[in-house]
């Protein structure tokens, strides 16, 4: 079919509409609603039940806007933009409407702010600051509903705080498609809830806690653990599985407290799995290896990691084929590059093995976000191994250990030990080697109890170092260092530099965790006189 120079605009290019928001001239695609136009141009508009990732409910009635030529206020979430439309949500009429809309939300709302986890990031508190009445006129009795309802293993509901915006119900219908939540009864006796036998128990249940604008749905894991205004935020990637969801990590001086998803159009949208949210537990101090441990002829002692790395480096120099390297898919491209080139050139071995943690469920996929491959950077490792030309099979390691051809085994162990079911077996198997160098971030009692020539070196976790992960689809995502949990832990790049004998640049330990003044040191010191 000859290339016809069709004059009509190609179907994919949507028509652009002109409109003015609060006096500012903007252009939007056809078919967007007014509230999408507001959020695309960063203009603030009060809303509760609208969420970009869910269908439009139009029930909170707060996103009222005044459209020129329309006597009645219209809701912005369900009104589509027409060409030349003049919209404004700062006029007195709109402010009064939102003030009353908010007041209707608040008349049956309990005075729970002191005991509510959402205080500090609660939609009602924010809007009250902007549109609050400050002279409440409601003196009647509030409607009493169920408090502290156990919705499922990870979510707690408080029906009195609920403003019935139906976001969570739409989430379980449209995103997780498990239809667990529903709104029962009618009028202001209506309550969110699950049916008796079916709790809210899918792998995405904690997303309902994120999208709940008030403190009705709270997460059991974070319940009463910290106030949100004591937490700082750091953008990162979830290393729970190979999808690589964009996340926000919340931390302060006492460590990490929770993880929330961050919008990324083509990887995870607005959502995140519940298992991914536990990816902060192995980063906190109590789960980490704090110092290097060297065990020689039966006596183990804790020494500085830098010293241990240098000693291991000397043992490996020019050891050739008697050294084997076992790598997991939990590290960054930069680390693989340094590690594998070091083992290929300086050490001169081609026995590099890729430790796959769950071979049977490796390629499973639950249809939304959770992938069977629980390592964030398997793709990066495979690419690096191919580049370096390592093609060793796992059974060669076993034979090598059997025949004694392999004397030293260096293991870049799992950062997130929870996803390695075969960890115990592997430790037993690899400890047969005459010399074992185990690089790992997390604490492991079995490793610390090993006898024979063992060196344990603590590593940094994904929030403490900068690097790139490549997710299952080959999308490279850069992660930045946000904080320091274990000051003297090393990254693989640093370990390799030390093994080569180079000196390390001073590492700036900003956002140091763990130094928090639980008590006043001054008094403690005097206490000992």
């Amino acid at each position, binding site marked *: 079919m000859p290339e016809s120079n069709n004059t009509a605009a190609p179907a994919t290019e949507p028509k652009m509409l002109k409109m003015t928001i609060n006096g500012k001239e903007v252009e939007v695609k056809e078919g967007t609603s007014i509230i999408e136009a507001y959020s695309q141009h960063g203009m603030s508009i009060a809303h509760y039940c609208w969420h970009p990732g869910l269908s439009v409910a139009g029930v909170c009635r707060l996103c009222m806007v005044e459209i020129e030529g329309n006597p009645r206020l219209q809701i912005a979430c369900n009104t589509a933009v027409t060409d030349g439309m003049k919209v404004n949500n700062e006029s007195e009429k709109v402010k009064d409407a939102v003030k009353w809309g908010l007041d209707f939300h608040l008349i049956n709302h309990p*005075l729970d*702010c*002191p*005991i509510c986890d959402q*205080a500090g990031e609660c939609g009602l508190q924010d809007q009250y600051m902007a549109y609050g009445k400050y002279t409440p006129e409601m003196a*009647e*009795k*509030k409607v*009493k509903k169920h*408090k*502290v309802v156990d919705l499922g293993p990870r979510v707690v509901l408080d029906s009195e705080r609920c403003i019935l915006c139906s976001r969570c119900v739409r989430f379980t219908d449209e995103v997780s498609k498990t239809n667990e939540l529903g709104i029962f009864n009618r009028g202001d006796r209506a309550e969110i809830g699950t049916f008796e036998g079916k709790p809210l128990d899918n792998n995405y249940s904690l997303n309902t806690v994120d999208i709940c604008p008030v403190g009705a749905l709270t997460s059991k894991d974070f*319940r*009463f*653990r910290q*106030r949100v*205004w*004591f937490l700082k935020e750091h953008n990162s990637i979830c290393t729970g599985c190979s999808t690589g969801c964009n996340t926000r990590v919340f931390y302060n001086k006492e460590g990490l407290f929770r993880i929330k998803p961050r919008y990324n159009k083509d990887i995870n949208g607005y959502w995140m799995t519940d298992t991914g949210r536990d990816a902060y537990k192995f980063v906190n101090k109590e789960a980490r290896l704090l110092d290097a441990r060297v065990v020689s002829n039966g006596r183990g002692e804790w020494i500085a990691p830098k010293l241990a790395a240098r000693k291991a480096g000397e043992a490996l120099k020019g050891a050739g084929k008697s050294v084997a390297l076992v790598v997991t898919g939990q590290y960054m491209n930069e680390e693989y590059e340094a590690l594998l080139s070091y083992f290929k050139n300086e050490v001169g071995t081609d026995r590099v093995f890729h430790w796959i943690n769950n071979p049977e469920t490796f390629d499973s996929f639950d249809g939304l976000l959770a992938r069977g491959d629980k390592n964030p950077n398997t793709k990066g490792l495979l690419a690096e191994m191919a580049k370096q030309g390592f093609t060793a099979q796992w059974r060669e390691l076993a034979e090598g250990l059997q025949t004694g051809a392999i004397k030293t085994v260096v293991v870049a162990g799992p950062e997130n030990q929870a996803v390695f079911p075969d960890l115990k077996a592997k430790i037993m198997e690899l400890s047969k080697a005459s010399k074992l160098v185990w690089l790992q971030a997390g604490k492991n009692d079995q490793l610390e109890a090993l006898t024979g020539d063992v060196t344990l070196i603590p590593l940094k976790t994904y929030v403490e170092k900068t690097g790139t992960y490549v997710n299952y689809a080959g999308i490279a995502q850069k992660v930045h260092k946000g904080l320091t949990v274990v000051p003297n832990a090393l990254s693989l790049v640093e370990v390799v530099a030390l093994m080569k004998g180079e000196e390390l640049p001073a590492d700036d330990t900003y956002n140091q965790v763990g130094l928090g003044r*639980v*008590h*006043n040191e*001054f*008094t*403690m*010191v*005097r*206490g*000992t*006189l």
Partner: protein
Amino acid sequence: MSLVQKRTELSKWYLPAIFQGLGWTFVKMVKNLANKKQMITLNYPEQKHEYSPRFKGNHVLTVKKDGSIRCTACMLCATNCPAECITIKAAEHEDPTVEKFPISYEIDMLRCVFCGFCEEACPVDAIRMGPEWQRPAVNGANFVYDLKELAYRPSLKGGIVSVVDETDRHKAGI
């Protein structure tokens, strides 16, 4: 306010100024001996100075009518404290109408500047600044008062009942 006096001829001789001061003290001594009641000195500790009710001394954590701690661990005092000397750890209460209470509440008295911001910030009158302030201790560690100390120390005789009580508010349906 300091009065800077010009150097006079007499003050150059140093001794006259001394005797002028001693004279003044002598006059005061005679007056006091003549009229003991006017004397402003207090025989501490038998006589203690009466402070005004607004005096901001050692903190007191109030209790509910049933004696349980009134604080709901909402962390507003810890947020408002300029010296950051309040450390609270919250926990879940088994009674769903109470829901949240402090499992540990510590004030580091050596760091506290007794400004009373915590008293102002508290939404439920759970913390007050009491009248006592002379509480010695042997070493620094004892100056970190914990929950038992702040709410149930002997001088509080079982705890001060808070004016804002949840149970009445719930019954009234607000």
